[in-house]
């Protein structure tokens, strides 16, 4: 029953909107010359990788500067000409140097910036394990004792319980 009422209401809303649309046709004057972009578009993906020369470290895909807009237009043109992502990036590198690339190419010394974080993470985890190992009390002694203090998992919960039981 309730669903039915909701359905009726919806129907009413939809039809009233349709009436509104009849009054004023929103779409009669639609411009067709538009550029739509989503994260799946090559132009956007390339634009995210390129640095805007007149802004401050921003990718051209996210900069309102006129220069960035011209570069985006150029990317779209090159893409339409059938150029691949790498070719388009190469086009800009030829003109502005590696500087224009917002993520350094993984070559030469630039490898460092790519491999250091994962190495650091692995070293950290390794250190963590060795720390736990070195800190562990002799396991054999503890094995036969209660495996865990089942209710002591949380200080606060414990205090609640103590509070309650007392």
């Amino acid at each position: 029953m309730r669903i039915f009422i909701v359905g009726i209401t919806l129907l009413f809303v939809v039809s009233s909107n349709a009436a509104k649309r009849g009054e004023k046709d929103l779409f009669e004057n639609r411009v067709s010359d538009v550029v739509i972009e989503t994260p799946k578009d090559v132009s956007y993906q390339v634009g995210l990788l390129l640095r805007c020369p007149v802004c401050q470290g921003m990718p051209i895909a996210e900069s309102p500067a006129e220069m960035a807009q011209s570069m985006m237009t150029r990317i779209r043109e090159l893409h339409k000409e059938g150029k691949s992502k790498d070719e388009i990036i190469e086009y800009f590198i030829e003109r502005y140097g590696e500087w224009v690339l917002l993520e350094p190419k993984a070559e030469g010394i630039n490898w460092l910036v790519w491999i250091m974080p994962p190495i650091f993470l692995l070293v950290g985890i390794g250190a963590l394990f060795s720390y736990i190992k070195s800190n562990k009390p002799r396991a054999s002694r503890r094995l036969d004792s209660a495996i865990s203090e089942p209710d002591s998992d949380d200080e606060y919960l414990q205090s609640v319980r103590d509070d309650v039981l007392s």
Partner: protein
Amino acid sequence: MNWKIILISVILFGPLFWALAAGFGNDPHAVPFVLEGKKAQDFQLTSLDGKVVRLSDFRGKPVVINFWSTWCEPCKAEHDVLQHFSKTYGTTVQFLGIVYQDQAEAARAYLKNRLNLFPQLQDPNTRVGLDYGVSGVPESFFIDAKGRIRHKQAGVVTPQILVDWLRTLLTEVSSGEGQ
């Protein structure tokens, strides 16, 4: 003394301070210029007075391309210098102006009551600007008789820079003819 802590800190902070100290004196706003010695990209643009101009038309003599716009104060400052040099060097050197990210109307209005001896070109979508790696105005490019970009002057071009580069480029032309 816990030497482990000291060692780890030196490894971590040593490079950090070295890099930061090395950063002094760098201009973080500078955009590198990588086209030096490369062939200048040919272009075909329409001038403000409607003529079609190609860079390749001027092969065989040095070309100075000046990117400018009416909203840029330093560009206005160097206008007279460029016009004066264009007059002095006459036909031996070709000067070209390219209006960068500006309305053609505004540029025409600006030039109306001023000395205007060489073609001023419109660059839709900054296409040529991108080809030359422009990152702001004013920027002036010195192209030799063989069509290679020899120098980019980012910022105001002084008479001294013009004299020096044009002399170099013209000497090359005459020595090339002498061979």
